[in-house]
């Protein structure tokens, strides 16, 4: 019976062949480490956020006189409302954590390089959508941080030449963040996740065209690829188990750890809290915004700090295969970047003092210096590595995989050493 049904479907829709080519027969490098779990985890958190979000929307009221109380209603009166809400608020942080690790893996292993530029750029687009969704969702509880966060961020658009003030009023639908703003943020907060789904589909189609990168950074021959299912479905699900343990600890034991206490005070348009901080995942970019003592300059610097990742495929001039593990200079830059991000995050968290402003300016300088110096450093590093020679094991791996495939493992350019 089952066979008959599948046959009936297959005559009308490519079900079996699709499952075979994209899942049970999809060739995946056998050496993928657990760092390759985070794309799957991001997809899982997306589903989790949409599921909890839809059920929260059944009880939430997008009206400034009702929204704060409707959150209390969800927390106290709705069956398991507290669970749905804490899963959703913790899920936002989990989403960014998973995405940041996913991006760090891409940077470390050089997965943004040819031919995976479009994966990196669609990913960048997804990051922007995620940031917009998180930002608009944060207004919905209508607490003090919600209100002032939205006020500060919508105010950034004042930096637009000529139409700045009109654009801010247009975005808000009012002279200040008000009822019109809340209602439209709710509508868009509900819409954007579905745009993210569409973006993820494009991301995955690109992935299945260029296939996964792998820790060696070398395109592996057929014999070193294994089917995605069952090998990587089981590996992904194991990682999911670990993720869910960490996630559950936060949901059940520290649900308020990442919620600013000030957001338990209803929004008051006439009183700014003494210390405004964004959610942790925006802190480094917020620190960059604050480090530039000029409105337009700060906004431009912050926008650049998010968008600069897009340029990575061009900034990295090295043709040494693989990621940071074969490239000591790039590896040092990678770790320096991670530390710099943490310094910026800390600076973004503390109130602005003379010392923290200077620290933020130094960290902002290094943030951009790392990206702008990469073309030169990666080029010099390549020359140095070619002179010194890669470790024999790597040379042997490259030669072996190239023999298998009958072609060179990376794109040749003029001036390549044969």
């Amino acid at each position, binding site marked *: 019976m089952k066979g008959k049904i599948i046959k009936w479907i297959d005559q009308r829709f490519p079900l079996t062949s699709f499952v075979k080519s994209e899942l049970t027969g999809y060739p995946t490098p056998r050496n993928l480490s657990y760092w390759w779990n985070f794309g799957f985890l991001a997809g899982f958190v997306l589903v989790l956020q949409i599921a909890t979000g839809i059920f929260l929307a059944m009880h939430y009221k997008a009206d400034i006189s009702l929204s704060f109380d409707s959150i209390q209603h969800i927390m106290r009166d709705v069956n398991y409302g507290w669970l749905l809400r804490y899963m959703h608020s913790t899920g936002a942080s989990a989403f960014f954590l998973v995405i940041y690790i996913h991006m760090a893996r891409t940077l470390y292993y050089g997965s943004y390089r040819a031919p995976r530029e479009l994966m990196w750029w669609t990913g960048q687009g997804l990051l922007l959508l995620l940031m917009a969704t998180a930002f608009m969702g944060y207004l919905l509880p209508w607490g003090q941080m919600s209100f*002032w966060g939205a*006020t*500060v961020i*919508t*105010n*950034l658009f004042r930096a637009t030449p000529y139409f700045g003030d009109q654009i801010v*009023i*247009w*975005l808000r*639908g*009012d*002279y*200040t963040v*008000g009822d*019109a703003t809340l209602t*439209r943020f709710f509508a868009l907060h509900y819409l954007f996740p579905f745009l993210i789904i569409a973006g993820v589909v494009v991301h995955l189609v690109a992935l299945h065209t260029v296939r996964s990168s792998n820790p060696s950074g070398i395109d592996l021959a057929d014999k070193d690829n294994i089917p995605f299912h069952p090998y990587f479905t089981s590996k992904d699900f194991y990682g999911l188990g670990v993720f869910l343990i960490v996630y559950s600890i936060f949901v059940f034991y520290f649900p308020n750890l990442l919620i600013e206490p000030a957001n338990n005070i209803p929004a008051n*348009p*006439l*009183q*700014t*809290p*003494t*210390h*405004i901080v964004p959610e942790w995942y925006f802190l480094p970019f917020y620190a960059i915004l*604050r480090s*530039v*003592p*000029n*409105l337009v300059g*700060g906004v431009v610097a912050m926008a650049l700090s998010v968008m600069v990742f897009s340029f990575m495929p061009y900034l990295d001039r090295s043709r040494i295969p693989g990621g940071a593990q074969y490239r000591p200079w790039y590896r040092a830059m990678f770790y320096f970047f991670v530390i710099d991000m943490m310094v910026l995050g800390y600076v973004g968290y503390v*109130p*602005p003092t003379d010392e923290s*402003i200077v620290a933020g300016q130094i960290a902002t300088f290094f943030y951009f210096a790392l990206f702008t110096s990469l073309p030169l450093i990666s080029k010099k590093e390549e020359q140095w590595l070619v002179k010194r020679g890669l470790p024999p094991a790597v040379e042997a791996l490259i030669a072996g995989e190239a023999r298998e495939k009958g072609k060179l493992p990376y794109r040749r350019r003029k001036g390549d050493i044969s």
Partner: protein
Amino acid sequence: MAESDALDDTGRREFLMKITSVVGGTGVAAACIPFVASMNPSADVLSKATTEVDLSGIPEGGMHTIAWQGKPVFILHRTQEEIKAMEASNGGFQPQPDKERVQKPEWLVVLGVCTHMGCVPNKEGPGWTCHCHGSQYDDSGRVVRGPAPKNLEVPPYRFIAADKIVIGEA
């Protein structure tokens, strides 16, 4: 014109394509107008335009914050020393004589919206300090420390009696 001539005339075909695209594009752009306009302030929001304030309850040296168009407006009843100090200086980043910022020297009326990111500054000692990013303003609402680029805005207002003003109309 015979049918074959029309098909063979590529110039005519290209022209028609361009014209159709322009007409279609204009139509789409025009259809966007109501959607974009619907996001601008609605009539009830626009009607919050003016607010009347009775100043008699504000003691000398005291400040009241009132809402106008949903935005906070600071009304500071300045003392003679404050007036003297403010008339003696020209402010900081955006120099402006105190006289241009007040209608009566004892009453300073400014928007309580930091010109940097829109936070509400707090009255601290002489002037205001914005806790979001550390900008400072003097008792004339002029910026004396960044990152705020401009002085606190003076809203349009006028005295309708000795101790009564209307904010929102000059």
